[in-house]
């Protein structure tokens, strides 16, 4: 794990009308590191990743990628940098098969004809490198996959494009125990393969299992960045909820 952050945000803010969604947030993630992003509903987690992905660019603050200041004003900009987001509601087409989904919108062609052979071969290689071995066939429709398999395909789709940073939005929210296991192993492997990973989750148990560091957002502010090995679930819960109510005077309505 190198010390130079891959992505570094300095003092980013975002307002939607009268709502201050993010206030001078600092955030960084290094290559090979799994950074968990936690916070209560309305803490600004989604706004932060939408800002990173360029869907809702930040109003102010510095956006540094690989140590250089960059301007990300749309999803294409972030994709060009190597940032891929795996959304909670899985951007997969049920009627298409695994290979077709992994190449959706970026199909390879030869003489304007779809190059199925190369796509299938590369999709297999990517799945193999992530040790996704439970698929019966890469030519089965995504509809026939289990939740964990679908999530694996969505992640594999994200890492296939020389991506450097993968953002996972609640990847285990709708999964059973065994399938959660499958996805968590996959998340660990992404980090081991040298990718920077941002993991949003409400499940502290999952986070303590795979994350190297934890960033806690509360009411649009970064209130803590903790090393997983040096903290406890109890401590993180206190940071998320601000422990005692008296420490957040007058801000109950801000979210």
């Amino acid at each position, binding site marked *: 794990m190198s010390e130079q952050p891959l992505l570094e945000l300095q003092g980013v803010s975002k307002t939607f009308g009268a709502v201050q969604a993010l206030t001078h947030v600092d955030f960084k993630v290094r290559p090979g590191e799994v950074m968990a992003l936690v916070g209560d509903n309305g803490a600004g987690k989604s706004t932060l990743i939408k800002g990173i992905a360029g869907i809702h660019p930040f109003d102010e603050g510095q956006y540094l990628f690989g140590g250089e200041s960059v301007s990300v004003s749309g999803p294409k900009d972030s994709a060009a940098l190597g940032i891929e987001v795996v959304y909670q509601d899985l951007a997969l*087409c049920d009627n*298409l098969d695994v290979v*077709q989904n992994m190449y959706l919108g970026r199909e390879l062609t030869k003489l304007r004809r779809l190059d199925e052979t190369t796509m299938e071969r590369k999709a297999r290689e990517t799945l193999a490198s992530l040790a996704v*071995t439970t698929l*019966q066939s890469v030519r089965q429709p995504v509809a026939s996959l289990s939740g964990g398999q679908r999530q694996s395909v969505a992640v594999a789709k994200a890492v296939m494009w020389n991506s450097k940073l993968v953002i996972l939005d609640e990847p285990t929210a709708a999964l059973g125990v065994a399938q959660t296991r499958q996805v968590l*192993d996959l998340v660990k492997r992404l980090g081991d393969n040298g990718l920077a990973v941002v993991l949003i989750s409400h499940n502290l148990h999952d986070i303590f299992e795979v994350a190297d560091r934890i960033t806690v957002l509360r009411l649009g502010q970064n209130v803590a960045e903790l090393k997983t090995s040096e903290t406890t679930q109890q401590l993180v819960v206190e940071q998320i909820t601000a422990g005692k109510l008296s420490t957040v005077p007058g801000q109950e309505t801000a979210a």
Partner: protein
Amino acid sequence: MRFLERPSRTYQAPDSAGGGEIDSSSSPSGTTAAPTEANETLGSYVRGRIDGIKGGDLGSIPIIVGIILIAIYFQSRNENFLTSGNFVNLVVQAAPYAVIGMGVVFVLLLGEIDLSIGFVSGVGGVIMALLLLPDGNQVSTPVAIAAAISAGVAIGLLQGVLFAKVGIPSFVVTLAGLLGWNGVVLLLIGSRGTVVIQDEFIIGISNNSLSKMGGWLVVEGAVLLYAVLQYLAVRTRAKAGLPNVPVSLILIRIAVLAIAGAIVVSVLNETRGVPYVGVLVIALMLVGTYVTDKTRFGRHVYAVGGNVEASRRAGISIDRIRISVFMISGGMAALGGIILASRLSSVDTGAGGGSILLLSIAAAVIGGTSLFGGRGTVRSAVIGAIVIASIDNGLGLLNVSAGTKYVVTALVLLAAVTVDSLARKGRESSGRA
């Protein structure tokens, strides 16, 4: 019919074979075991297909069974049904529904509907007929055909833009189209009543046939082309180290195609031979299938039909796909109108009316294209058109009334959609939806 009894509709892993849920061997360092699929044998392929059928993936089985039942029934009632002469008629009758249906398949794949195709076909036929009127201002035949098809494409562009950019539901846009283009047909025909087509080429499309030798050359060429393409596909996949379907299966498919083609051509050759319009329909089907299966555009049509949001996030231009499918639908409808005009050798104020719209959509649906989007094939319209034309033709031989024809066609459509819906339920309960 095991799939009818399964109550669960939640996603579950395919229970057919292999694929354990938990990857128990997963180590953090990442083992590199690929999803291994050995080359299938014929036996394992057949078992896989049977599992698929039980799970609600019926493919074209119901429709083929349907065609056979229809043929047996009509032949037993009137022995003229399966004669060469009637077979030629059947091909010519099915052609307009097949062509218009193939166009509307693209719209149905998005889960949208185009109600205007009937009268767009009327507009196409009328424009072509008027341009060819020998009144001193007539244009050459290719120009007239191109103008008619262009008009259909332009109509599709207009309706597609209203749907995609303005956001009017496709049902409403094309319902307005249904009324509006009917009006345009009446305005174009004006006081003429009926426009007789005298152009030899146009009349020949539906009424002339290939020579006997020509018919054989076409079918032999098609089988050879299919075999070569299959061989190339297998070789490319083998080179890339990918699993292949069993060679014996490919040989069986080639043999079935060759035998079926030979039977059709020899029956047709007993009288008039293969009608030009039959060759045209097959050619359009091949081009359409190439577009849906082998191009990025086709892939994106299926994607948008399956999940609009996922397609948008994948960077697909939704509007472009939406407008394009209506243009295809309009253009094919106009071409269907030309074929229809060719068969009748004239157009009149009723051009594009009657049951053309609904039977063309019914052809696609009977052939297996889903009205819910994301599922369907270009060839479904051709197969469905054959069914519809068979019923029409067979009941005609039995001298039943027009009322009975509609009722029977309605029942067949219902039966086809029922099979589709039950299969869909089966797919859901076995996790293949």
